[in-house]
């Protein structure tokens, strides 16, 4: 049993924390790419920009300005600091539901990135700054995993994490391979950058060795069974957590978001990666993004903003 508002906040904490971590990686890769004076740095910058703006960026920023905006811009709701501030604000509202260990980690990151020295730390050593945030966020997730009860609240937190993750990786796939978004990534450096942004470089090398190929990267990010950021892995977790939090809801005969989650999981589970061409892959990614958005709404309608008439005691 848990308050609807609390479940909603936990879900959003999951989403914001995942978003902050992802944006840190994007900014870091972007800054790294500027160090090489090659063609590929332009490709990387273009990829990052279209991943975060859905391809609608009008005035192209310099890589440094873009990295700064992704990290520190408080006006930009998708920036690292904004996401962390919102995660922490949500955590404050459900402070009674988080263990002290979990709360302290999140509060600490927030205090550091919004502290007085933060802007200076970033410009002095951006890589270190971003790396520290990622490490702290891993501590947060670890503390949550180790100290929170893995019950309903945990389920909503994880739902937020995996829905956000599936969407972010989906957008990255679109930015890297999408046919309608300019030139697909071909340069070796750009391809490794793509893997780095998905935190997938090392797991990929372990599986496919240093044979870096667009098709293999795409297959890996979409269909790998064990890699925790692949679409297949994320959608399987979404289905799992949704069926556990939805166990006690009486939907009065309706199917709710669980059916959607099950179908989405099946799409990736039973797809034949080898038979999928570029266009089919594109449309599968688009479907995943669209169904994640519908899941997001379905979760809200089913668990948080349900109509009272349906649930009044008989």
């Amino acid at each position, binding site marked *: 049993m848990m308050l609807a508002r609390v479940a909603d906040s936990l879900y959003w904490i999951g989403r914001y924390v995942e978003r902050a971590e992802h944006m840190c990686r994007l900014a870091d890769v972007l800054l790294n790419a500027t160090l090489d004076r090659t063609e590929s740095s332009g490709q990387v910058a273009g990829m990052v920009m279209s991943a975060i703006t859905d391809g609608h960026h009008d005035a192209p920023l310099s890589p440094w300005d873009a990295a700064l905006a992704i990290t520190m811009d408080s006006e930009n709701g998708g920036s690292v600091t904004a996401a962390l501030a919102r995660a922490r604000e949500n955590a404050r509202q*459900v402070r009674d539901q988080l263990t002290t260990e979990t709360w302290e980690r999140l509060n600490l990151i927030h205090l550091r990135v919004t502290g007085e020295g933060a802007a200076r730390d970033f410009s002095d050593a951006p890589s270190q700054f971003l790396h520290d945030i990622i490490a702290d966020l891993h501590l947060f997730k670890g503390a949550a995993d180790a100290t929170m009860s893995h019950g309903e609240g945990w389920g909503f937190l994880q739902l937020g994490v995996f829905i956000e993750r599936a969407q972010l990786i989906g957008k990255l796939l679109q930015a890297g391979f999408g046919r309608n978004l300019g030139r697909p990534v071909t340069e070796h450096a750009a391809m490794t950058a793509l893997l780095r942004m998905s935190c997938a470089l090392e797991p990929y090398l372990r599986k496919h060795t240093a044979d870096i190929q667009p098709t293999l990267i795409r297959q890996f990010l979409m269909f790998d069974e064990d890699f925790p950021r692949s679409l297949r892995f994320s959608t399987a977790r979404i289905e799992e957590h949704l069926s556990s939090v939805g166990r006690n*809801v009486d939907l009065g005969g309706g199917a709710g978001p669980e059916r959607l989650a099950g179908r989405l999981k099946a799409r990736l589970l039973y797809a034949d990666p080898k038979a999928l061409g570029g266009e089919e892959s594109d449309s599968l990614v688009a479907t995943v993004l669209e169904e994640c958005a519908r899941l997001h709404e379905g979760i809200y309608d089913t668990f948080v903003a349900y109509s009272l008439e349906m649930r009044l005691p008989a």
Partner: protein
Amino acid sequence: MRYALADPSHPSGAHAVAVTPYDEMIDPTGEVRPHYAALAQRVASLAEEDLAERQRLLERFFLLQGITFTVYGAESSTERIIPTDLLPRIIPATEWATIEAGLTQRLKALNMFLADIYSGQKILMDGIVPRELVLGAPSYRREMQNLFVPHQAYANVCGSDLIRKPDGGFAVLEDNLRVPSGVSYMLANREAAKRTLPGSFRMAGVRRIEEYPDLLLSTLRSMAADWRPNPQVVVLTPGVYNSAYFEHAYLARLMGVPLVEGRDLVTHDNMVYMRTTTGLRRVDVIYRRVDDDFVDPLSFRRDSSLGVAGLFNAYRAGNVVICNAPGTGVADDKAVYAYVPEIISYYLGEDAILPNIETYLCREPSQLSHVLANLDSLVVKAVGASGGYGMLVGPHATQAEREAFAEALRANPDNYIAQPTIQLSTAPCLIDGAIDPRHVDLRPFVLSGDKIRVTPGALTRVALRKGSLVVNSSQGGGSKDTWVLGEGDGLEARP
């Protein structure tokens, strides 16, 4: 480090007599009082940097826990920690026994008073307390008349403010029976003190306060109707923007009950439910941290969005219990306060164990003229205000401030009471690296449900500005941990 007593030639008006305040640590001959000896010795052995380091540790603990309040500025808002002092205030066992007996007696009588004025009103018939004083008070709730309150426990949580007078005796400055706050600081200060001064803490033999959340939960459960097995208790908060939000979340977490906002609750058929992920769930007891005016827009303020429409009717129907009961504020009204000793002897036939501060009711013409003539030595308070607002500290005010206040007094004398300026006792505090006396008060927390429970500890509030007598956190006050010593005062633990 050296510690010197407060200067007796305190800024004071023409009529005020310079009195040396009681110091918690040093007696008038300059000797350290026995219950402070161990701490004084320990502190003396620490270098200035060691103390500063411990103070930093303390502040970090509060920041990390998120024990902060938000200061809203024009463009941005910043979070600050409540100023907290490193050095604890120590109360020996014998003194605590008096405080405990006094508070128990007082709350018992005040609950009987509330039960009486909301039913037969015998005390008004007998002319002990003036009728218009009670029925005319803005905090009197006609809606509470003849409503059944279990155990006659109207004020389930009470936080009275005590002060120590220059002669060393404790007195009650005011009662807080509405939604008293500060208990989380009592608990957090203790947690911090155990980290910053572990050795001294162990040596002293301090009584435990950590059971407070358990006792609060038992108290709240005892208020539920006895036919409801496993009553559902919730804490109702105005929300995250309230300055005491940390406390609401803290208590909910330590009691293991949901922290709800008004929008989480709905009423249906005079029952109260909370919206959970799996549907509606019945609520039995609401520990509300929302003022009377805001609990139910249908019964009280219509523009309130913090409360729950229909809550009061559910309460009247006996399907939910609101703690503290609405309307308890009438018993901590600053004018009714003057009658508490009479209230105690009327209901219990006993003398008050803890005395009141002498109080002038400006509604009486003779007392008003006395107050106006002595504004420079008195503290004048608005009856309905709290938190240190609407208050004049005569000796510290300018002539212009006094004149403006005199104007307000003449215009609406019913609204004011006056008390002599009491030199609150002083306790050693770490200020800018030096140990210096500052004025303190004491807010212990008393619970009443099926029985009255006093937690052996308190929030000691500190007026951090030198010479200031105002301890409210909204007016530059801070706090410190309060150690109530066990039997034997822990002295035998010393070699």
